């Protein structure tokens, strides 16, 4: 079946008996209404043409003009032989002029069309004239009176006395502003809905647990609205396990929590081997928590007996403690309890005083630093233009009780709460530069500095002296400003930035697009490189939002003379996408995982993994 078949079939349409009956009823209704309206003296004609439009008319142009006028549309006519341009009062009003003159200058028409639409309108009209075809064109009209803009739809028709030779043009114009705005709004909403708001941090990929960020957000809310209780349990062994058995442990723990924790209470994974439960009922929390603790100690996962210790802290919702404070307190309680009474859940009746918490944090960070329980890793960064590793980011690892390196997220979050982060950052600068100074210095290194450290007094002096002491070429060093804490004092940070950049170091802004890593920092500090937060990179292949956001950041940075880097690059396709978007550097497991220093740092080599070589072109 094609169009002609359907046209033919439709033409065979004959009214049914039902249709005829409906017509008769409709006719009666019209006559009844008409009689009623006449009796009431109502006018039924509305804006109906009072003359027979089909009757004889002088010429086509005056007929079209009259039709336009009765439809409240404007018209403008070009009479070719007379070289005369005339317009209607309505058209004149549309352009923002009083309707006094019927003649109009070409310049007036041209200037009334929005500059961005002028070329298009001219081309359309020229096309219509050349092809002797009508054109419909929608454009913006710039009203002379007040500079406001209206959308106008124009039907541009060719006039011809004999139906052959064109003798002029007549254009009828309707104001379609509302329709056009509706259309734009409609397509805007469609685009917005298609890209949609992206759900932050869904369930943990293993065992349906909430992730750390998700759990912390819920905890922060609970700490303000309380009451409730927070349980943190640490599980051994979990930290040092390879991926597969570690996931087995998470699944097992998740199963136990799912059975005991009341419906509606949240539980999540905080770090490897550390789990949190947020109870809404503080009364029954102690009992449930004790049962969780007890049950976990009786559980085996993958043939291994689990060991558990934990701390519970109750809160009222009116304490001055934040979610993170509560977390510190619960972890502290668990650790203290394990030392004093192993095997028993340690319970705090409420958050510790801020002072005690600060002191404990200071003591703990101090102990880690004194015992040198920190070590450095380096993660290669791929230069996407050269397809070669030219840089490394230096990362911190904290050694646990058994001397195994652990990710530093919890440790740094703790240190960043006080001044301790400055000491940690200085430790990193000192030890990194020492290691780099011993190596061949062929690669560049990126060292993290917290926002708090950046504005601490004497930092520039310390950094420059350390560079000299270890004979490190400053041009090989980039300092990354991390976003996790706000920069206290932008002026002090600017002073530091100026001092180290004068010596040849570069500055990078880490985690761009999240938290405190804002445009304002980009504006106030002489940043050389922006590292786009992994949140926008990890899902780049699937997420249109991420591609648009990364593309916009790259375009902005290019214009500002800033290079861009992407973190959390997970696969070769993402590398290709990033190269296509124009990102300068990529970092992530697709390139290489962090390796302990100094081995790769001592002899950094251009790494060409199979992934990288495939990523060419």
């Amino acid at each position, binding site marked *: 079946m*094609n169009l002609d078949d359907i046209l033919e079939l439709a033409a065979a349409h004959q009214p049914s008996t039902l249709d005829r009956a409906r017509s008769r009823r409709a*006719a009666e209704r019209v006559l009844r209404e008409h009689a009623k309206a006449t009796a009431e003296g109502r006018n039924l004609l509305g804006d109906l043409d009072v003359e027979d439009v089909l009757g004889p008319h002088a010429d086509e142009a005056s007929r079209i003009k009259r039709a336009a006028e*009765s439809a409240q549309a404007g018209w403008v006519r070009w009479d070719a032989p007379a070289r005369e341009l005339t317009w209607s009062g309505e058209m004149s009003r549309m352009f923002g002029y009083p309707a006094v003159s019927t003649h109009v200058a070409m310049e007036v028409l041209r200037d009334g069309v929005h500059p961005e639409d002028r070329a298009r309108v001219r081309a359309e009209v020229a096309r219509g004239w050349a092809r002797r075809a009508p054109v419909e064109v929608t454009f913006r009209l710039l009203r002379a009176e007040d500079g406001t803009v209206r959308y106008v739809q124009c039907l541009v028709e060719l006039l011809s006395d004999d139906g052959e030779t064109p003798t002029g043009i007549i254009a009828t114009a309707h104001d379609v502003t509302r329709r056009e705005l509706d259309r734009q709004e409609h397509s805007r909403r469609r685009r917005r809905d298609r890209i949609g708001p992206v759900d932050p941090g869904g369930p943990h990929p293993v065992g349906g647990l909430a992730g750390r960020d998700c759990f912390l957000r819920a905890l922060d809310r609970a700490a303000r609205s309380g009451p409730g209780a927070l349980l943190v349990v640490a599980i051994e062994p979990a930290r040092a396990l390879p991926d597969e058995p570690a996931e087995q442990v998470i699944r097992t723990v998740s199963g136990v929590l799912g059975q005991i924790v009341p419906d509606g209470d949240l539980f999540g994974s905080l770090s490897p081997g550390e789990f949190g439960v947020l109870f809404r009922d503080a009364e029954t929390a102690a009992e449930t928590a004790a049962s969780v603790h007890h049950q976990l100690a009786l559980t085996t996962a993958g043939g291994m007996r689990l060991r558990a210790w934990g701390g519970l802290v109750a809160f009222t919702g009116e304490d001055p403690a934040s979610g993170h404070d509560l977390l510190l307190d619960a972890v502290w309680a668990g650790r203290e309890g394990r030392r004093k009474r192993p095997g028993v859940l340690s319970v705090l009746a409420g958050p510790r005083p801020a002072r005690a918490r600060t002191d404990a944090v200071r003591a703990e960070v101090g102990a880690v630093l004194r015992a040198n329980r920190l070590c450095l890793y380096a993660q290669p960064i791929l230069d996407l233009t050269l397809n070669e590793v030219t840089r490394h980011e230096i990362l911190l690892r904290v050694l646990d009780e058994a001397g195994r390196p652990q990710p530093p997220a919890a440790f740094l979050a703790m240190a960043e709460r006080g001044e301790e982060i400055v000491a940690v950052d200085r430790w990193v600068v000192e030890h990194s530069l020492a290691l780099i100074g011993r190596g061949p210095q062929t690669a560049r290194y990126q060292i993290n500095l917290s926002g708090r450290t950046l504005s601490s007094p004497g930092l520039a002096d310390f950094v420059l002296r350390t560079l000299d002491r270890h004979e490190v070429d400053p041009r090989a060093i980039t300092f990354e400003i991390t976003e996790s804490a706000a920069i206290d004092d932008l002026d002090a940070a600017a002073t530091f930035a100026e001092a180290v950049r004068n010596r040849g170091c570069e500055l990078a802004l880490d985690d761009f697009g999240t938290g405190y890593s804002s445009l304002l920092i980009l504006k106030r500090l002489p940043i050389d490189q922006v590292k786009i937060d992994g949140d926008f990179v990890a899902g780049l292949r699937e997420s249109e939002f991420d591609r648009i956001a990364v593309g916009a950041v790259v375009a902005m940075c290019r214009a500002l003379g800033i290079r861009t880097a992407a973190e959390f690059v997970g696969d070769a396709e993402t590398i290709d996408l990033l190269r296509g978007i124009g990102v300068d550097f990529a970092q992530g497991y697709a390139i290489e995982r962090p390796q302990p220093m100094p081995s790769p740092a001592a002899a950094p080599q251009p790494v060409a993994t199979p992934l990288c070589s495939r990523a060419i072109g």
Partner: protein
Amino acid sequence: MPNPPAAEEEAGAEKLRQAALDATFTGFFTRNHLDVEVFLQRLEADRGMIEDVTQEAFMAIRAKWEDVQHYEDPRAYVMGAARNILRRHQKQRGRTPTLFIDDLSLPEIAAPATPREAADRLAGWIQLLPPRMGEVMSLSRDGHPDRKIALLLGISHNTVREYKVEARRKLLQLAEDDGFTVPAGRRRK
């Protein structure tokens, strides 16, 4: 006191005149009512609005039926009036119809089996044309010559001719998009 005989006579004559008008109008109405509705259905999807517009148009025609009945083509005149009223109603609806071509998902469309289904399918396509082109197409489907369409819509002959060609091209495209490409055999049931 009884009415003067002259006035009574005049009222009676007026009554007769109106009754005669009612009679000829009813004939006109039943002959054309469905065609006007079909014509409007090609310009608007909302059947309720079409019913209102049809009634309003015929009431206006009835109000000046005395003149209109002598017009060159009363049927074409009522279509023109209905089209004007429809456009006014559409404008007053607040939001313009939110049916845009890119919205259409493409479910499998069954081939129309009856003339009514074919007319509905066709109406659906004509609604997707630019408004003025849809009007030209719809009037032309109703059998009006180009000259009359130009007069009714207040556009030039040239425009009507061009729009008919352009509308057919677009309809072919729409039909193709909906999977109607292969001509049926001439002997269709």
